[in-house]
């Protein structure tokens, strides 16, 4: 794999900008008051060893990024690996840093990670993404940082304090989030694939089905969430069975229904184009050999369309993970509950705490699904470009 130095250079620039011009952390005497920003200079003041190490690392990174060709120097190729530890180490340092002069209640005071820190983080990831085995490197960086947080090694970080406050709720909401975003896709699978098949078989219905399904995608999620409240409330009030099933105007049910409708489009549209890109000759010969429609669907159409359908499912999953946030507004739970709670309490760190899992979930699920998709495409023995089939 060729190393891409552009990414390294852009990443390095971001990181240096972050360290020099932006605060790495903000020290807050309590949760709400305006904090005291700490930049790189303030952080290194009086710590000669740390300053030397930081200078050394930045210099190495600069040499690394300015090369024209892959260097033979083992040390230089190790730079991206070394950088993996930087975000985690910065957390440790920031957690123990205090502004000069001042007496703080350490039980209440906290250190928020600020724009500079996140820029450094992004820069390092970008630099690593261009290096050989970029995926492994980036995962390592993220894992180390998560470990520092998760094992409580940086107890004075605001992120950690917020996490400890809501630990039980955090895991519950995480589960809720995953359940909502994945289960709704699972429920949409069968109708989505069936609708795609109907689109493939009946030209006349195609426009109507795709048009309707598209409507759900176009409609603002929030307005759908609001609108679905009305019939659901009516149903649960008037039909006891519905209420017993736990279907109510607010909470899990409406969020689940809307998310299901929302992911119909990618699944249906991809199923349709998946079925449609199967060569007519293949379907014709299946028909001519005396396969029934059902046999053709099961043995020919479906396996051949599977990679494309799967890429639709991937799209549905990743978009659902993000959309599930809105469930937080109607009592459906999920990380949205934390994000909106953080927003309304002006607690930026809580918002970040809610956002990180969402981004990670989306990226991980996307990567896993992509891997499966590639395997599937290989197995199906076809080399069509699944990229084009997405919506």
């Amino acid at each position: 794999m060729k190393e891409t130095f552009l990414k390294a250079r852009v990443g390095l620039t971001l990181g240096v900008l972050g360290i020099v011009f932006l605060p790495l952390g903000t020290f807050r005497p309590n949760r709400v008051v305006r904090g005291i920003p700490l930049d790189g200079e303030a952080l290194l003041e009086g710590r000669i060893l740390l300053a030397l190490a930081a200078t050394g690392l930045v210099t190495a990174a600069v040499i690394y990024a300015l090369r024209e060709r892959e260097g033979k120097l083992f040390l230089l190729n190790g730079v991206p690996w070394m950088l993996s530890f930087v975000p985690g180490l910065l957390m440790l340092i920031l957690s123990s840093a205090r502004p000069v002069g001042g007496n703080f209640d350490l039980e209440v005071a906290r250190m928020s990670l600020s724009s500079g820190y996140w820029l450094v983080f992004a820069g390092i990831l970008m630099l690593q993404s261009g290096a050989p085995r970029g995926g492994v490197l980036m995962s390592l960086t993220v894992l180390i940082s998560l470990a520092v947080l998760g094992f409580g090694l940086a107890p004075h970080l605001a992120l950690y304090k917020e996490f400890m406050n809501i630990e039980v709720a955090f895991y519950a909401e995480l589960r809720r989030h995953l359940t909502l975003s994945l289960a709704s896709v699972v429920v949409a699978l069968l109708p989505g694939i069936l609708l795609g098949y109907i689109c493939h078989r009946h030209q006349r219905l195609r426009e109507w089905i795709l048009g309707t399904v598209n409507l759900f995608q176009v409609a603002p999620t929030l307005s759908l969430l609001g609108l679905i409240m009305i019939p659901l409330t009516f149903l649960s009030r008037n039909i006891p069975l519905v209420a017993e099933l736990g279907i109510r105007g607010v909470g899990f049910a409406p969020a689940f229904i809307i998310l299901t409708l929302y992911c119909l489009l990618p699944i249906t549209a991809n199923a349709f184009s998946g079925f449609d890109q199967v060569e007519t000759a293949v379907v014709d010969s299946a028909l001519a050999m005396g396969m029934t429609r059902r046999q053709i669907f099961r043995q020919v159409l479906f396996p051949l369309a599977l990679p494309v359908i799967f890429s639709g499912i991937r799209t549905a999953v990743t978009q659902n993970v993000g959309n599930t946030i809105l469930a937080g507004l109607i009592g459906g739970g999920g990380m949205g509950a934390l994000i909106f709670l953080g927003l309304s309490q002006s607690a930026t760190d809580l918002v970040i705490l809610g956002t990180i899992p969402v981004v990670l979930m989306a990226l991980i699920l996307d990567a896993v699904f992509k891997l499966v998709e590639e395997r599937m495409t290989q197995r199906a023995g076809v080399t069509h470009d699944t990229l084009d089939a997405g919506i």
Partner: protein
Amino acid sequence: MLDSEGSIFGKMIIQILNANGIETVDKVNFGTPDILRKALENGEVDLVLDYTGSGQYYHPEDATDTSIWNDPQTGYDLTAKLDKEKMNLLWLTPASANNTEMIAIKREFAEENGIVTMEDLAGYINAGKPFKLICSAGFAENTMGLLGYEEAYNFKLRDDQLIILSSGNTAEMLKALSEGTNEVNASLVYGTDGALDKMNLIVVEDPAQVPPVYLPAPVLRGEVAEVYPQIEGLLKPVFESMDLETLQKLNAQVAYDGKDAAAVADAYLKENGFLK
């Protein structure tokens, strides 16, 4: 309950009930008060923390005389009666802290402009001096909220003098006020909001008593009350002990100091002998 007060009360109720052998499921962060109310009516939760003044929203057809809500006792009685009859919901003893909606301004701003009451503030606004209020949509669009204030004190805010947030949580509004974000110089505040002192804010007095009285009280479903009749007795002393000052103090610990609501609740209950 997305606010500190709800979390504290919620955790307290859970701890008290658990300590007395009643098993509970913690749904404290379930949703906004209005969503909780629906969930209670639908039987999805059994006990919520609610505010007496909210009765005006639940029974709009029976609450035409708004003055009912300005008195703590009549408001509580009417809500309790209507809820018992129509929904079989039981209002238990409320705390004696009025968590009503008022307007807060910075201390220096008040002193500079000699503002003590809403009348002073209305005069200031009507003089065309710079004013910007941050508040919730629920307050801005309520005839017993900002619309009521405007009528009672005879002033009118333009759209550009308002920042309306959809959430009803005052923490971010007070922060915006204390930091002067977007030139905000007034904010919605709840009676029990803590740490106004720390943030150097004061509440503007409201002689006309525009907003309803909001006393926090546990609301229990009738069927559950039949199974656990002891709940009422268990919660009564706790809620009676909570006056305005106590609640402000506890709220400040959670919303401003960022302490865990469960820990704050636990400490308070133990300190006052409700828990061992």
